[in-house]
């Protein structure tokens, strides 16, 4: 019993930031007395919008650059691309893909510049990134408000009503709004299946060519999963029942919970049976998986939970992209480049003596992050539907970084798990805290202050804690040396 208590204590202490925010969220929910289904719907839609931006922070963090406030620059690249795509009248998915096509080289170029800057301000990347965000936003404003139409001739009365200077807000309805979200789940399955198969084949071929050992088991697994998704996506549309449930672009959480839970149970049971046959004893995780599956399914029967489930609609394509981002982050860390990044992140001196080009590795990490951030901003804007042309990028870095820190990330360590948990918690608090404050104070004007205070406060506290730990460690070392 004591042992259990101790391990519980340790678990809470290890996840103290998360625990603190869970308590805060629950307290705010209790005070606000809003329906849970409203909060759940809001949080899930915010999740699909913001997760990709947050996931773009992980790679530079592992490369020792800290929290990359420079993702603002990626967001700016995305906004410029949207602007041109709207001007030339492209709409729908084609227009969205064109945005991706335009924004990627732009983001790579910007990322390269940002990386150069970071290499010149080693040890102060975060403050440099923050100021760079403001600086870049200033240049962007100069470009869209004065140079476009003012210096460069540009005729578009719809975008530039005065002949120069972009209009303040632009409605993307009918052009890019929901361009990605409107893809049906079955199509998403096809795309993900193809990507999985191609990725597996390419990596093993590449490894073979380089003479490295080929992870045949892993590759096979990827191919099988990819093929399953592909077959499901293609065959599914001819089966009326499946087409009815999964043919639409937005899945209702009830269905996802039902079938997801079922899949979890089946997977866990098969695994358990297999490992029992082999005589392995470690089954805790698998049993937990099965229980989670049962709970998910049970939720669909309980009316209160079912109501929440029914309120939530998941845009399947956005979630598909989030999954791909997570896989990408994991995959790159397994490659040679990723290993180099990790080494650079841990100790630049060691990395240099191991023959790694530190500066180049850091620039590549920044470029990847900037590109991912640009795509993330595209996903954000196509979901939101209104494009606040001049200031849209301003809070991108702030909210994303606050979110990942809430999820338990530190300046030196961030994973997909931190990002996912962080986005959920941070945005739950973002939704409920103003409601709770309004209830207490009786005035809604205060909610903006509370949101900003939470965001800045989270970053301030976690940066201070990190710096404190670093200083303490240094002092320890010094004391030991003496």
């Amino acid at each position, binding site marked *: 019993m004591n042992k259990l208590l101790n391990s519980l204590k340790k678990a809470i202490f290890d996840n103290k930031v998360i625990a603190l925010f869970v308590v805060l969220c629950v307290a705010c929910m209790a005070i606000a007395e809003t329906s849970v289904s409203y909060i759940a719907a809001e949080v899930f839609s915010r999740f699909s919008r913001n997760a990709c931006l947050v996931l773009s922070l992980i790679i530079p963090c592992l490369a*020792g650059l800290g929290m990359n406030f420079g993702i603002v620059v990626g967001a700016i690249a995305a906004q410029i691309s949207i602007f041109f795509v709207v001007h030339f009248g492209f709409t729908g998915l084609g227009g969205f893909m064109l945005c991706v096509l335009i924004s990627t080289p732009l983001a790579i170029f910007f990322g390269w510049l940002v990386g150069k*800057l970071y290499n*010149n*301000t*080693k*040890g*102060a*990347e*975060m*403050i*440099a990134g*923050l*100021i*760079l965000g*403001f*600086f870049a*936003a*200033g*240049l962007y*404003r*100069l470009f869209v*408000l*004065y140079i476009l139409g*003012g210096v460069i001739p540009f005729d578009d009365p719809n975008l530039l009503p*005065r002949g*120069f*200077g972009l209009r303040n807000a632009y409605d993307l309805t009918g052009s890019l709004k929901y361009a990605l979200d409107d893809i049906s789940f079955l199509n998403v399955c096809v795309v993900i299946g193809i990507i999985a198969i191609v990725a597996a084949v390419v990596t093993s071929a590449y490894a073979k060519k380089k003479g490295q050992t080929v992870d045949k088991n892993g590759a096979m697994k990827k191919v099988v999963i990819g093929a399953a998704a592909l077959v499901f996506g293609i065959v599914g549309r001819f089966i009326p029942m499946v087409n009815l449930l999964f043919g639409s672009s937005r899945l209702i959480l009830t269905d996802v919970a039902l079938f997801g839970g079922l899949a979890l149970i089946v997977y866990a049971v098969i695994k358990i049976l297999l490992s029992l046959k082999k005589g392995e004893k470690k089954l805790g995780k698998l049993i937990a998986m099965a229980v989670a599956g049962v709970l998910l399914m049970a939720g669909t029967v309980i009316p209160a939970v079912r109501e929440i489930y029914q309120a939530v609609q998941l845009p399947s394509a956005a979630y598909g992209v989030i999954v791909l981002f997570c896989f990408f982050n994991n995959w790159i860390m397994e490659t040679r480049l990723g290993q180099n990044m990790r080494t650079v992140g841990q*100790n*630049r*001196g060691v990395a240099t003596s191991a023959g790694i080009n530190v500066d180049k590795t850091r620039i590549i990490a920044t470029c990847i992050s900037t590109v991912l951030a640009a795509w993330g901003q595209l996903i954000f804007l196509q979901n939101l539907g209104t494009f606040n042309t001049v200031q849209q990028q301003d809070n991108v870095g702030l909210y994303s970084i606050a979110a990942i820190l809430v999820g338990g990330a530190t300046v030196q360590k961030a994973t997909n798990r931190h990002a996912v948990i962080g986005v959920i918690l941070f945005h739950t608090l973002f939704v409920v805290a103003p409601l709770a*404050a309004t209830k207490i*104070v009786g*005035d809604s*004007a*205060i909610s903006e*202050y*509370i949101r*900003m*205070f939470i965001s*800045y*406060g989270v*970053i*301030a506290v976690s*940066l*201070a804690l*990190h*710096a*404190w730990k*670093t*200083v303490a460690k240094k002092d320890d070392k010094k004391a030991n040396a003496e």
Partner: protein
Amino acid sequence: MTKEKFKKALDVIGIPRLIVFCFLLAIVIVAYVNGIDVKSYLTSTMKYWGMWVILVLAMIPTIKCGIGPNYGVSLGIVAGLLGPLLSIQFNIAPAVNAVLPGFGPWAAMFFAMIVSGVLAWLVGIVYGKILNLVKGSEMTVTTYIGYSVIYLMCIVWFRAPFSSGEITWPLGGVGVRNSVSMETSFGGLLNDVLSFSIFGVEIPTGLILFCLLICFVVYLFFRTKTGLAIQATGANPTFARASGIDVDKMRVKGVALSTLLGALGIVIYTQGFGYLQAYTAPLQMGFICVASVLIGGATMNKATIMNVIIGTFLYQGLVIFTPPVSNQLLAGTDISDTMRQIIQNGVILYALVKSKGGSSNE
């Protein structure tokens, strides 16, 4: 040979300062050519110089004690807002005026300065202790502490228990309104002392003298034993420790002095502006102060009072002269905010690159 000399001279002046100076000169010339009333804008430049110079001066102690520019001066600013508010709340100016006619505003101003100063000193000590825990990442931490404190105080201002009708929301009866008029207490007090005009440019003598006085006091402070110890701490902490200086204590003193100057600065700013602005108005002030001192020629670890005086003048001149000129060139626009954003942050970035940041992890 000459090329080298030229390069050296450029290094001494610094590229950003040169660019900013040329830019300002060009703008003034364009303004003059276009028939814009240069004199009235020079008048406001003088006024704004006086309003900002003490806030910028707050950067000096932290730079000298090795922390770098104090982005968190906003802490001192929000603490400094309380003094003027209390002096209005307690009706200091009218009360003293009833006894000693004419002295009311002075009493109100000094009351505000003392209250703000004491509060800021205490806040600064706590703040300095926090900064001692985070050595090496002061800049990032101060920025975010500054931001979060401003928003925390926004929540406080919103429902603070003030009862004076001049402060509270017109309908609510509590809190602090968006901008509180200083007319009944000490608005414009220093500006009007001994002010005269020369060639149509109005000189706020009292304000300038008072600011120069405070600059001089700070200058003298850095000649005292404590001041020298603070400078030694910044120049070489190891050496300072070896010669028996308590480095951490000196850093706390530097931060406290900076916070105090920030509080005094906002009191002076408020009297010059004529309105007290709580809420998000101080948000960008920290960055403006940092940029001003850097334009004046300071670096991340070296600054003089001359840097402050020159830098504030250049920065404010830029901010004040750009709008009319841009309006002339592109009718109906105000490019000044965008230009300010670019120049201000560009200067800070340049200084960061020049100082090469820290170099932990190597």
